C-alpha cells in the first residue's frame, strides 16, 4: 500500500513541478498579452508532433548530456568543476585540429582520432586546476573560472592567428574538417526501423554515444573500485584516506575524467554540424551542464532526462517564437522559472517521500 503511494508520488512529483512552473510562466505570458494555454499547446505540439522536432530535441540535448556528466563527476567527488566551458572549447579545438590536419586516413580511424583529441584537450585543461589544487592549494572554483577566460583568448589566438582558414574572407574559422572526420548522422540507423528523418536534422552518433557514456558512468560509479572510491572521497575524504584510499589520486583521476568527458561536449556540433570551429562556436554548454547535473541530481540517468528537458525547452522556444511571436526573453524567463520550480518541488516531494518510506521501514 505504502509502496504504491510512494510510487504514485514519485510519478506525480515531476508532473507537479511542471504544472507549477507552467503556472508561474503563464503569468509572464499573460503579461505580454498571449494566451498561455495556446503557448503551451503550441510548444508541445510543435515539439512532439513533428518528427524533425523530436530529433532536434535529442540533438540539442547531446552536448548537455556530456556536459552534465562531466560536471556530475566533479560533484561526486566534492569538487566543483566550473571549468567545463574552457575544457570543451580547448577539446573542440584540438579535435578540429585533428579533423582538418590529419589527411589520408580512413574514417574508421580518423573519427576516433578526432574524438581522442577532444578528450585530450579536455583533460589538458582539467589538469591545470587539479594540479594547482593539490600542489598549490588553489581553490578549483577560482582556477576554473580564470581558466575559462584564458581559454577564450587562447582559442581566439589559435583560430585567428595560427590555424585560420585563409581561403575565407571575413570569417574567422579553422579549415573545414575532412569528410573522414565527420560523424555520421543517425538517419541510416533509424531508417532500419522505418523512421525517416528529414535531411536537415543533425542528430548524429554522439547522441547514442552520450547515452552509452551515461550508462558507463553509472557502471563506473557503482560497480568499479574507482567509482566506489570517487563516491567515498566525495562524501568523506577523511574516512577514505583512513581506509587507505588516496584522495589526491582520486581527485586527479576524477578531474581528468571529468575533463575528458568535457572534451566531448562540443564534438557533436563540431563533427556533426558545423564541420569547423570558429570564434562563434556555441558557448555556455558548460554552465548549462551545471544546471543539468544538479536537476538530474548527479545521477547519469537523471542527467539524460534533464538534458532532454533542456533540449525540449530550446526547441519549443523556436516553435513559439516562430508560430506565436513570443519573444525569446519570455522563453528565457520561462526556462529559469522551470528550473527553480522543478528543483523546489522535487526537493519538497522527495523529503515527503523519504519520510513515508522511513515509516515503511518499521
Amino acid at each position: 500500500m505504502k509502496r504504491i503511494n510512494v510510487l504514485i508520488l514519485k510519478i506525480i512529483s515531476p508532473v507537479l513541478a511542471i504544472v507549477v512552473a507552467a503556472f508561474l510562466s503563464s503569468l509572464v505570458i499573460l503579461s505580454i498579452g498571449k494566451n498561455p494555454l495556446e503557448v503551451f499547446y503550441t510548444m508541445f505540439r510543435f515539439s512532439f508532433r513533428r518528427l524533425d522536432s523530436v530529433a532536434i530535441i535529442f540533438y540539442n540535448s547531446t552536448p548537455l548530456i556530456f556536459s552534465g556528466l562531466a560536471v556530475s563527476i566533479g560533484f561526486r567527488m566534492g569538487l566543483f568543476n566550473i571549468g567545463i566551458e574552457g575544457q570543451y572549447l580547448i577539446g573542440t579545438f584540438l579535435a578540429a585540429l585533428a579533423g582538418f590536419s590529419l589527411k589520408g586516413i580512413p574514417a574508421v580511424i580518423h573519427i576516433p582520432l578526432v574524438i581522442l583529441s577532444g578528450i585530450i584537450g579536455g583533460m589538458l585543461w582539467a589538469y591545470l586546476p587539479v594540479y594547482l589544487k593539490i600542489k598549490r592549494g588553489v581553490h578549483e572554483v577560482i582556477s576554473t573560472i580564470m581558466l575559462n577566460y584564458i581559454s577564450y583568448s587562447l582559442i581566439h589566438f589559435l583560430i585567428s592567428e595560427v590555424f585560420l582558414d585563409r581561403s575565407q574572407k571575413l570569417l574567422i574559422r579553422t579549415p573545414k574538417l575532412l569528410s573522414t572526420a565527420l560523424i555520421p548522422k543517425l538517419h541510416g540507423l533509424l531508417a532500419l526501423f522505418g523512421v525517416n528523418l528529414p535531411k536537415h536534422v543533425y542528430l548524429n552518433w554522439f547522441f547514442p554515444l552520450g547515452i552509452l557514456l551515461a550508462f558507463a558512468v553509472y557502471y563506473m560509479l557503482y560497480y568499479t573500485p574507482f567509482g566506489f572510491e570517487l563516491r567515498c572521497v566525495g562524501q568523506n575524504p577523511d574516512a577514505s584516506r583512513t581506509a587507505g584510499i588516496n584522495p589526491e589520486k582520486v581527485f586527479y583521476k576524477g578531474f581528468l575524467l571529468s575533463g575528458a568527458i568535457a572534451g566531448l561536449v562540443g564534438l557533436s556540433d563540431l563533427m556533426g554540424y558545423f564541420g569547423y570551429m570558429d570564434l562563434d562556436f556555441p558557448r555556455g554548454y558548460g554552465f548549462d551542464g551545471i544546471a543539468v547535473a544538479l536537476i538530474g541530481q548527479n545521477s547519469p540517468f537523471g542527467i539524460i532526462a534533464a538534458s532532454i528537458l533542456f533540449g525540449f525547452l530550446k526547441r519549443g522556444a523556436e516553435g513559439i517564437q516562430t508560430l506565436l511571436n513570443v519573444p525569446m526573453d519570455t522563453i528565457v524567463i520561462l526556462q529559469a522559472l522551470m528550473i527553480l520550480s522543478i528543483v523546489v518541488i522535487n526537493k519538497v516531494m522527495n523529503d515527503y517521500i523519504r519520510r513515508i518510506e522511513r515509516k515503511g521501514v518499521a
Partner: protein
Amino acid sequence: MFLIELIASSLRMAVPIILTAIGAVYTERAGVVNIGLEGMMIVGSFWGALGSYYFGPYVGFLFAMAAGAFLALIHAIATVTFRVDQIVSGVALNILAYGSSRFLSQAFFKMATTTPHVNGLFKLKIPLLGETSPVIILALILVPVAGYILEKTVFGLRLRSVGENPLAADTLGINVFKMKYAGVIISGVLAGLAGAYLALEHTGMYVEGMTQGKGYIALAAMIFGNWTPKGALWASLLFGFAESLSFRVVQNAVIPYQFIKMIPYVLTLAVLAGVVRKSTPPAADGVPYERGTK
C-alpha cells in the same frame, strides 16, 4: 602620472567586484553559497538605470538594491526554506536575471539590450584621482564596516555562527533561518549596488551583458580573500589592477593581443599558485540546515 592613472583605473575596475565580494562574504559566512550574484548584479544594473531614468540616480540606486534583494530573497526561499541545492538556484537566478532584464527593457524602453542614457550621482573631486564616484568611496568604507559588523556586532557573531554550526546556533535560540536570510539578502543588496555602479556611475547607461562575469570574479575574490572583507578587498584590487595593467601593456606585434587579454586571469592564477595559503570556508558553507538531522 602614469602610476596615478593606473591606480585610479584599477580602483574603478575593482569597485563592482569589491562590493559584490563583500556581499559574497556575508552570504557565505551565513553558510549559503550564492552563485547568483552575477544575476543580482545584472538586475542591479538594469533596475538602477530604470530608476534613474524615471526618478533620478538616488531612486535608481534604491531600485537596484531592491532588485538585487528581491532576487536574493528568491534564493533564500529556495535554499534556506526549501533547502534546494544552492548552486542550481543560483544558476537559475542568473538565467532569470538575464531574461527578465531583457524582457523589461523591451517593455519599458522598446530596446532589448540597452536603456536610454541615465544620470549618475554627483562626483567628488579628489586630489590625484580627479572626479570620483561617491560609490567608490562607499565601497572602500564598506570594507571595514563589513569587517566591523561581522567581527564586533551581535548580528555579525550570530551570522557567522550560523555558517559555522547552525545546530549549535539553533540550540542557543538563534533564529538560523533569519540569519541566513539576512546574509543572502545583504549580498543581493550589495550586488545590486555594484550593478548600479556600472550602469549609473561608470557608463551612464545599462547595456546587456555589461557585468561581464564580474559576479563570478567576485566569488573568486571572496574565496581568494579567505572569506573576509579585507581579503576580498585585496583580491578585488589585485584583479582590478591586473585588468587596468593589461590595458596599458603596449599592444604591438611581439605579444599578440589575445595574450594581453589573458593577463588579469593569468596573473590571478599565478599569485594564487605562488602564495600557498589554506583557505578555510565556513564549516557549514553550502550545507542546508534542517533541525533534527545531525
